[in-house]
């Protein structure tokens, strides 16, 4: 079997066997970062007194149950991420990408802890994968965000613990060194963590803010190579498509900009739901490229555009800017029922490249906020 031979070749390569060609390039870059694994983390904290809590992660746009504020003492919060390399369909044409994922989704799941908690992550790279991976938490301090301590080959797992010292929403992503870094990130290997202040979100004047629903939207730019006729190409494995994809990546012009891994992943039957009077917190991450979320027909009541909760939120925003390599959070209370589009307000990216999600919001119409004084009528 052709495919199995390729797998074996990569395995052999990972074991240090000399190898040439594309796949050689893929793997050869990794030892650069592997050297960082020598970084030390200082004296291990005495965590024997702390509660350990194991969290089952859920796939975006949903988020595991959590307290919005807590009076409990800091905990050790345990998560497991299974790395899964798999083919994913990313648009309604059936275009595919050989995706690299945390827990099988693009983006990876949102983790929620409180400031002062310890995050204890088990990162598993099953033997069925072909590539080395790791994880760089922007919320962590030291060792390349943990990337230097977490590089795992297929068939290995690693456990990292870091203290969540800064409150906010932060990107995490794979960073296995050199050209592998952007390639893994634009193949889907990124997600976000939310570190809540222990006393919860505040409006900037000391008043608490609460949400009824939280949605996590990961925006993903893809760079899919095309054949001579302009059709998107598909590849048997990630390595096979590496060089072609790199060429597209260097144009800095994505072929797809999507929410939740695929165009239409958050529309139609997958549209997010809320009711009039409910408040939603929308966490939006972009691990690679700038973006500008906008809720058509609504607003950002309170927005942490840089995503960090010790800064007072901005209020009444129309569109907010999220810098590539960061996450932001926007709180909004729905005031009118209807279908809302949540877009990247570069509308070419929203409409042509896929960056559109929908909310359907049920409830009572408020005529005071808006009314159709005269329906469309022949001009008098």
């Amino acid at each position, binding site marked *: 079997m052709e495919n199995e031979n390729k797998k074996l070749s990569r395995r052999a390569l990972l074991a240090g066997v000399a190898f040439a060609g594309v796949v050689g390039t893929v793997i050869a870059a990794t030892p650069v970062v592997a050297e960082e694994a020598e970084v030390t983390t200082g004296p291990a904290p005495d965590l024997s007194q702390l509660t350990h809590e194991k969290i089952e992660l859920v796939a975006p746009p949903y988020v595991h149950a959590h307290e919005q504020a807590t009076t409990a003492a800091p905990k050790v919060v345990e998560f497991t991420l299974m790395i899964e390399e798999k083919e994913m369909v990313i648009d*309604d*044409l*059936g275009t595919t990408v050989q995706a690299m994922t945390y827990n099988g989704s693009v983006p990876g799941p949102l983790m929620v802890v409180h400031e002062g908690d310890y995050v204890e992550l088990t990162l598993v790279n099953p033997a069925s994968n072909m590539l080395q991976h790791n994880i760089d938490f922007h919320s962590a301090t030291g060792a390349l965000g943990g990337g230097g301590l977490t590089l795992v080959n297929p068939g290995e797992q690693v456990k990292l613990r870091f203290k969540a010292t800064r409150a906010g929403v932060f990107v995490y992503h794979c960073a296995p060194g050199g050209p592998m870094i952007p390639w893994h990130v634009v193949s889907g290997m990124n997600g976000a963590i939310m570190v809540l202040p222990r006393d919860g979100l505040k409006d900037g004047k000391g008043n608490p803010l609460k949400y009824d629903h939280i949605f996590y939207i990961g925006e993903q730019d893809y760079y899919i190579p095309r054949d001579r006729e302009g*059709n998107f190409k598909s590849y048997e494995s990630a390595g096979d498509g590496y060089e072609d994809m790199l060429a597209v990546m260097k144009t800095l012009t994505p072929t797809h900009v999507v929410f939740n891994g695929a165009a239409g992943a958050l*529309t*139609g*039957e997958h*549209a997010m739901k809320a009711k009039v009077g409910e408040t939603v917190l929308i966490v939006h991450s972009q691990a690679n490229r700038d973006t500008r979320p906008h809720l*058509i027909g609504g607003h950002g009541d309170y927005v942490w555009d840089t995503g960090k909760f010790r800064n007072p939120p901005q209020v009444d925003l129309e569109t907010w800017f999220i810098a590539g390599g960061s996450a932001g959070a926007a709180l909004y209370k729905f005031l*009118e*029922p*209807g*279908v809302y*589009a949540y*877009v990247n307000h570069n*509308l070419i990216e*929203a*409409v*042509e490249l*896929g960056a*559109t999600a*929908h909310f*359907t*919001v*049920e*409830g*009572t*119409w408020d*005529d005071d906020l808006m009314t*159709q004084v005269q*329906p*469309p*009528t*022949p001009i008098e």
Partner: protein
Amino acid sequence: MKVIASRANPSPSLWLPGLLLCSLLALIAVQSGLVPFPAAGATIERPETIIVPPRSFSSRLAGEFVRDRVPVDAPMATIERDRPIEIMKFQVGVFDYARCVADGACEAAAPRRKADGDVPVTGVNFNDAKDYARWLSAQTGETWRLPTVEEWAFAAGSRLVDHALGIETDSANPAERWIATYEREAALGAAASAKPEPRGAFGENELGVADLGGSVWEWTATCDGRTTLGIDGGVLTHIESCGVRILEGRHRAPMSAFIRDGRSGGCSVGTPPDNLGFRLVRERPWYAPLAELARRITG
């Protein structure tokens, strides 16, 4: 399908007893400019057609309807149709369309989804469909055109989808109808394959018309428009908007006439048609009743 010479030939059964009459009529028709004269020497496969016999049927009127300031389902009309219609059994295929392009009479199609084999042409706009009809008419010496929404419904028979939401929405809450429409279209869109399939793949209705409501939506000649109804249901105002034409298929979709790819996104939250194509009807020649009479007489 049979290959015919392009000269008009209303019915083979007329050849023996009706030769004289037919020739005479054809001569009159051509000389008086009532039917287009075929292009010299052209030979074309005559599209396979279905003759839908007269019957009474129901179809919702086209366009948007507003009653008492609230959007409502289009009224259902019962139509007594006393004449047959002759409609293409299949949607116009890629190979058929390619001949029009090769003749320089049609612009190239721009399909979003590439598919191999004898699939319906997709990635065509309303104007392309009209160009094709003009070309086919010239090639066959017959008159081909797009069906109206009503004619499409007549030929669709049991495959006609009732577009009504069938819900009484609160007149004070416009959002109820938006959400209901959104959810219904989302469910329709998610139900089936979006790829163009070989012609015939979606089966036939009881009349023998194939691929209705498959993955390819069909342009009609009907203009979009808005009709305001009074409380009693009478028409108060009607504005036609012919820059937008109605597509029929799994759901009814208004679309700007120049669009070849009905994708959605951004502010437009509805589910778009997967692919845009068409089929044509053959206009009944003015002498058709005579020909039918002759056929009846000659048994």
